[in-house]
């Protein structure tokens, strides 16, 4: 079972009744797996964004149910506002927030360390190191949540979330709904009540710190009597680094594995260190445990031996602590990288082809369409966070004036627009911007692996539901000029974008064409290049992975990759590309 599936299993076994999340690699599968459990046992939803998801979970918890919300590290930024105050209100039914960090940035825009949130929001945080612990720590998190009247953070990382290892499952616990009682001093956070609750939060922190000293089953010490170069070595680990350390160091060192990464014990760490000659903290990303150790007077080795960047490996640990050289291996010549690309048939390719042709500045966003930043399309100027394409473009326009604004567009996917694009659009209307926003409506949340969203007309369980009418929504917030266009109709799409940009008013273009990977999309046949080809290279500008130039200069379409979408047919000035049915 992958770690994420094990978290879902743990939550199911813990009797969770409500799960609300917004997708985000590497956390997405937790919620997808929750949705495979019976609907009469767990309500599961994709929310429009993490803040909403967290609030749904908070509401469910206050109403007496065990509730779960899941997100990737940057999702925690979006849910931070409700979360910080949920720390004050505490819970009714147990509440757990699963957050997956992405050291190495396999699929993220930054490498932030979510452990800082535990400290900032004063919430306990557990961190499993394999799938078995994903399950058991999730169950434990719900118990702690109710025992200590607090939301509990469960920190994951890409390696733990996406590694499969064996787990033992159990039956679902029968956890009845708690009684709902109106309780103003606990659940209405106005200054007077919040002052009272802050006192409770600080008391809770003291109690949790005391707990950290005695939670032997998850903050566990394994002693070794061996020495390394004549010294007794101790290592402090958390999450996946415990696995790496065991592989690298075996039983030659003593271990203090921290399953609860906030709050951290004090006395037990001091005691552990006192029996070692040298102590190393092995933690990916920021020196959180290291700083804690230093603050309580334990001299440790940390980031001077290990990096703050990316993922660790057993070899790195063996080198730092044992001074062992890495295993012998073959050295290879430099070779081309293979960055991800838009798939064959991707609707975004057509959109960027037109934007590039028009020479527009493109305020970008996050989704499959971020790949439009890479050559040869190389159209995207900026990518910061979800929703920023719209609001940052208003800032650009206000900074540089309307002439600049007329050569500027925002591009934002349907899911991202629902997540946090709408408020930016309202800002444009309210503050008299003349920006053009292009909503890339491919009928799905593509980047994270095809989740439904409020524009697709389906819930996470595949039930039909009312879908947001994007056109009507844009009209409703005050955009008078809204047009829907198919980007594969290159001529018309170009004309529509030109018209939108020329306006002295805000405009929205809805670029509508479904993701080529959707089951409902069936391209047939293949495209072939005839001898009319003059090798002008126009089709190469699409950056289609199926089209390439041979060494002799001829252009070929790889029939194994071409899905017959036919986009290239329309860009060839010599009509040399034909679509043939098989």
């Amino acid at each position: 079972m992958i770690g994420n599936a094990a978290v879902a299993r743990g939550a199911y076994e813990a009797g969770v009744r409500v799960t609300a999340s917004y997708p985000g690699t590497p956390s997405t599968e937790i919620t997808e797996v929750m949705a495979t459990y019976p609907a009469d046992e767990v309500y599961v939803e994709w929310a429009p964004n993490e803040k909403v998801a967290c609030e749904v979970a908070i509401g469910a918890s206050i109403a007496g149910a065990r509730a779960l919300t899941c997100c990737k590290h940057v999702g925690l930024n979006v849910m931070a506002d409700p979360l910080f105050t949920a720390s004050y209100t505490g819970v009714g039914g147990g509440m757990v927030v699963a957050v997956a960090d992405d050291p190495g940035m396999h699929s993220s825009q930054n490498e932030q360390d979510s452990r800082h949130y535990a400290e900032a929001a004063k919430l306990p945080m557990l961190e499993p190191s394999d799938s078995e612990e994903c399950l058991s720590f999730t169950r434990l998190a719900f118990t702690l949540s109710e025992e200590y009247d607090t939301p509990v953070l469960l920190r994951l990382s890409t390696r733990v979330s996406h590694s499969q290892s064996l787990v033992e499952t159990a039956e679902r616990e029968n956890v009845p709904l708690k009684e709902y009682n109106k309780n103003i001093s606990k659940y209405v956070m106005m200054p007077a009540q919040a002052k009272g609750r802050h006192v409770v939060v600080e008391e809770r922190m003291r109690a949790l710190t005391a707990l950290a000293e005695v939670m032997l089953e998850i903050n566990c010490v394994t002693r070794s009597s061996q020495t390394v170069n004549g010294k007794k070595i101790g290592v402090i680990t958390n999450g996946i680094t415990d696995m790496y350390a065991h592989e690298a160091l075996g039983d030659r060192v003593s271990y203090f594995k921290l399953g609860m990464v906030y709050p951290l014990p004090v006395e037990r760490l001091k005691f552990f260190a006192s029996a070692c000659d040298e102590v190393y903290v092995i933690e990916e990303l920021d020196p959180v445990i290291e700083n804690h150790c230093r603050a309580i007077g334990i001299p440790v080795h940390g980031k001077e031996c290990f990096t703050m960047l990316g993922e660790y490996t057993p070899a790195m640990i063996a080198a730092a602590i044992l001074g062992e050289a890495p295993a012998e291996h073959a050295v290879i010549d430099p070779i081309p990288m293979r960055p991800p690309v838009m798939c064959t048939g991707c609707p975004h390719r057509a959109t960027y082809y037109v934007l590039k042709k028009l020479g527009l500045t493109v305020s970008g966003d996050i989704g499959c369409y971020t790949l439009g930043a890479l050559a040869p399309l190389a159209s995207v100027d900026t990518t910061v966070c979800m929703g920023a394409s719209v609001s940052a473009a208003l800032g650009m326009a206000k900074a540089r004036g309307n002439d600049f604004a007329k050569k500027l567009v925002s591009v934002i996917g349907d899911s991202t627009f629902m997540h946090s694009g709408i408020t930016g659009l309202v800002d444009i209307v309210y503050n008299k911007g003349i920006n053009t926003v292009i909503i890339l409506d491919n009928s799905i949340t593509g980047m994270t692996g095809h989740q439904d969203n409020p524009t697709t007309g389906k819930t996470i369980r595949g039930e039909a539901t009312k879908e947001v009418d994007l056109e009507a929504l844009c009209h409703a917030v005050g955009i008078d000029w809204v047009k829907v266009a198919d980007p594969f109709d290159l001529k018309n799409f170009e004309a529509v974008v030109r018209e939108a940009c020329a306006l002295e008013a805000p405009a929205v273009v809805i670029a509508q064409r479904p993701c080529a990977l959707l089951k409902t999309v069936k391209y047939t046949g293949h495209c072939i290049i005839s001898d009319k080809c003059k090798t002008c290279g126009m089709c190469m500008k699409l950056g289609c992975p199926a089209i390439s130039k041979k060494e002799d200069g001829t252009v070929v379409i790889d029939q194994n990759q071409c899905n017959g979408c036919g986009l290239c047919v329309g860009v060839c000035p010599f009509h040399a590309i034909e679509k043939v049915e098989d």
Partner: protein
Amino acid sequence: MNSSVNIMIVGVGGQGTLLASRILGNVLVKEGHDVKVSEVHGMSQRGGSVVTYVKYGEKVYSPIIGEGEADIILAFEQLEAYRALPYLKKDGTMITATQCIDPMPVIIGAASYPEQLCEKIAAKANLITCDALAMAKEAGTDKAANVVLIGILAKRTDIPHDTWVEVLKTTVPPKFLDVNLRAFEMGYTYSM
């Protein structure tokens, strides 16, 4: 350092490496090993390099494989095979499909696809090559190239033939089972 058997599966997003690692993982669990499989999803679905680590033995700690640690590398594409070569143990075996897929830097002319990769690999490792795509087409569908490769790998493990077949039956959708079983046998009996 450790006594696990380490297998890496590498290829290009969309080639079906994930199904291959699922089959392998299921087989190893069935054989009673401690198993860890680690794959990175997300961006890699979009035609980028994909790497999956599969480790098994009595007790497996780390889910990842470092340079010089892989016993076998199963590659779906030549350039990816070469890219993974540093991960192979000194006496390890590389199994690669002969398929070549140009990465975007090559397509746009910013780089060229290196030549004679198989020769370069053979100079440093035990190499088994096969035209998995052609074999899969012969079996009935080019989509079964991953299972052809699994067949070749299966022959080089100590896991009984029937375990693989049983796992295929539960992992592959019934509609495609016959084709995949044919593809597996072609791989299993393949010799260069």
